[in-house]
């Protein structure tokens, strides 16, 4: 290969790389949920994990280096997600087209996630009677499921819930992850921010 050919092959490679980056970005934008290496790889026609990983990490870096409101995060299980940085949520949440939950249902969701699998009666006891409405809302959004266990109803979070928050599908791991999230929340400077979100 002469120098010129080599150059053009290099530039072709670079072009492909840029194009692949954009496809990954497009996929993350459209999906609005964490996507795994397999899904991302299929889109750019590769089965090489290393390649997808390199691309995803590059995209992540690019976002990090920009002064932007968006971020790309890596979740457990080799999954990536594009989302709004939390600090901008209070300002723009009412513009979201997706039905959002207010503070009450989110608290009920928190409790269910933390205590799951948890009897429905226990949730009502702790969260009060209005929680029946919350549970319906959470079920509509596919964040929880209610299962019959004899005469009782038992509630747990769905796989979609885990995916949405980038949590593990393994219950024990998920609970450990949640605990650390809740501990972060307990820090005062963050609490203030969360209160603003109401």
């Amino acid at each position, binding site marked *: 290969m002469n120098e010129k050919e080599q150059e053009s092959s290099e530039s072709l490679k670079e072009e492909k790389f840029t194009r692949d980056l954009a496809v990954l970005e497009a996929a993350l*934008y*459209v*999906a*609005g*949920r964490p996507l795994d290496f397999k899904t991302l790889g299929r889109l750019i026609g590769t089965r090489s994990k290393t390649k997808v990983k390199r691309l995803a990490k590059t995209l992540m870096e690019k976002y990090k280096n920009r002064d932007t409101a968006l971020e790309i995060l890596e979740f457990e299980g080799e999954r990536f*997600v*594009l*989302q*709004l940085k*939390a600090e*901008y*949520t209070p300002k*723009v*949440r009412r513009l*979201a*087209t*997706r039905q*959002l*939950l207010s*503070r009450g249902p*989110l*608290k009920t*969701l*928190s*409790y269910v*996630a*933390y*205590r799951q699998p948890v009897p429905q009666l*226990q949730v009502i006891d*702790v969260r009060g009677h209005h929680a029946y409405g919350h549970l319906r809302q959470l079920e509509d959004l596919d964040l929880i499921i209610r299962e019959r266990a004899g005469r009782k109803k038992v509630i747990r979070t769905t796989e979609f819930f885990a995916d*949405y*928050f980038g949590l593990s599908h393994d219950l024990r791991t998920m609970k450990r992850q*949640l605990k650390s*999230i*809740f501990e972060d*929340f*307990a820090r005062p400077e963050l*609490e203030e921010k*969360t209160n603003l*979100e109401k």
Partner: protein
Amino acid sequence: MSSSMEKPFYFQPPWNILFELHRLQKIMPWDVNISFLLGSFLEEMEKRGEIDFRASGVALDSSTTIYLMKSKLLLKLEEPPPPPKLPPDFLPPPLFLPLRYELSSTTIHHLLNVLDEVLKGERLVPSEPRLEPFLPTPEVLPQVDLYLMEIEERMENLYNLLCQFASEAKLIVFSKVVAGLEKLEAVKKFIILLFLAQRGKVNLWQEEDFGGLYITITGGPSVE
């Protein structure tokens, strides 16, 4: 002094409440567990071998009074005290959903796909004017006390509800009327139902002693 001069056992707590009714003025009847008191009173009497019919009579009479007080409170629509609360469970902070745009897959085709069905529904709706409510609220309410007024209002509400049920099926089962309600709410509904029956607005009957309660609307004199 011999032991025979000692106060009888039932002047001690917890049974004394059945024999010193004036004290009930100061406490809530909800705090008195009648069945426990009567049960333990009988047990204690048997244990001691001192059968005293006069005391039993007084205890029974007092129990009826307490029971009546509870019923009156229920009629006044006063809530019984909530059961004692266990220490509260740990409540984690709310999990705020991260904001993510998500392209939705709904297109104009999905929108119009369901239109046909909706327009069929339109043809089923009669064009006649909407019916006025069955029982117009009187403009001027008679000067009665608040409690009675509330009962009147509740009667009217329940009656309207029953009419609604009746438009779906001729026979109304009481259990359906109170489905999903708290026990106390169901009791209140039942009491109001008795008022309606007494006014001749509805008929109540059961097929068996403990069978379902059936209601039919007789359309008697208006609820006023």
